[in-house]
């Protein structure tokens, strides 16, 4: 598992946080009821630390964090800007 495959890294993080829940890569984690404000901040901190960027304020929206695929796309967008 390398950072070349952000979706695998994000999936592993979610798996560790919610060991009892199977989450498909395109599944809406907000609709699953997994995201409260505590977990939202944990998720943002995880993404920032793991992928080495600060989430810009225009990316601080649900759509950027809605699913493993969405987070992976966010990482790709940020990697493209550096």
């Amino acid at each position, binding site marked *: 598992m390398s950072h070349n495959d952000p979706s695998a890294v994000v999936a592993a993080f979610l798996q*560790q*946080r919610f060991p009892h829940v199977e989450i498909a890569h395109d599944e809406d984690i907000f609709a699953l009821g997994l995201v409260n404000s505590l977990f939202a901040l944990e998720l943002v901190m995880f993404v920032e630390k793991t992928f080495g960027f600060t989430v810009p304020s225009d990316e601080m929206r649900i759509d950027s964090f809605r699913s493993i695929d969405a987070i992976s796309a966010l990482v790709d967008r940020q990697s493209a800007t550096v």
Partner: protein
Amino acid sequence: MSPMAASTERVPTDRAAARCFARTHLAPLATRFDQAGSIPSETLDRVGAAGLWAPFLPVGYGGQGASMLTVGQVHEEIGHACSSVRSLLTVHGMVSWALLRFGTPGQREQWLPRLAAGSVLGAFCLSEPDAGSDAVNLTSRAVRDERGWVLHGTKTWITGGQRAHLFLVFARTGAGIAAFLVPRASEGLTVTPIPGMLGTRGSMLARLTMTGVRVGPDALVGPDGFVNGMVMTGVLDFGRYSVAAGSVGILQACLDACAQYTAHRKVGGTALRDRQLIQAKLSDMVTDTRAARLLYEAAGRLKDQGDADTLMATWVAKYFASTAAARHAAEAVQIHGAVGCTPGHLVERLYRDAKVMEIIEGSNEIQRITIAADAYRKDVR
């Protein structure tokens, strides 16, 4: 700023510098602050001159770029001398942290240098008469119009409210609960002092009544929506961390006072310290103080690494440290007997201050609910 404060030499903020400051400028006056129910401007200026208000802010904003580990250690040392001043540092730090993490460049430029210097004091306004632990049910509201936002509602138990210049106010918008910067001078804002609290009596609590308070569009901290809950969570995390560290300061102060008192006080011709029941109490104080310190310092290191595990580590540290502080402050009074029940005695103040630590920044019941929820989420296989 008073001339005396201006002449105080600024040394890099760390545990040793904070200890020196606290023992020189706070500890000798803390009983007076408690009895007066306020901290004099001269002392607040000294805190600013020593660079203690928000040392974690970057140098570019007038801070010192101190690590969160150092911030915790500073708050422990200040809490050892005076929980009222430590409480002011807590809420001021919460406002500063919110702006650093979620503020726009304009908000940061406008406020952070002044928050770093302490020429602007911040206060954190979440609680309402009918919403405390259940902050999600708060009823203050912010309505958007073409000129900005208009706020209505009542906030209560606001630490530093009597003196603060800038309030971070949480209010309901269409999208959730958002945070707003409300300057004290805003029209429609009334501040009413709340005197005589049980503990942290010098921390100048107030009630805020907002009747059509108008603020600009730039008063909102963080984009409205997804970020709303995160601002509250992040700010409370800072507050909890500070209270955990401050509670360790109370624990250490209990230990210091008890070790000193039992060395001299004789009962039946024998110094109390030679009694095994007293030794048992002291050994528990030592152990809990060290354990609580390790917990908050571990949480601080995780913050410095940007590790998401810091959030739960901070809940655990605050729960452990505040309950230990309340337990051992009660024992400290017990060990001192009637002397410890005397108005103005150190352990009498520590006892009252420690109780407050179990209620603020998430009461102990809420701590336990959150810690248990995390255990069920992660640890139960």
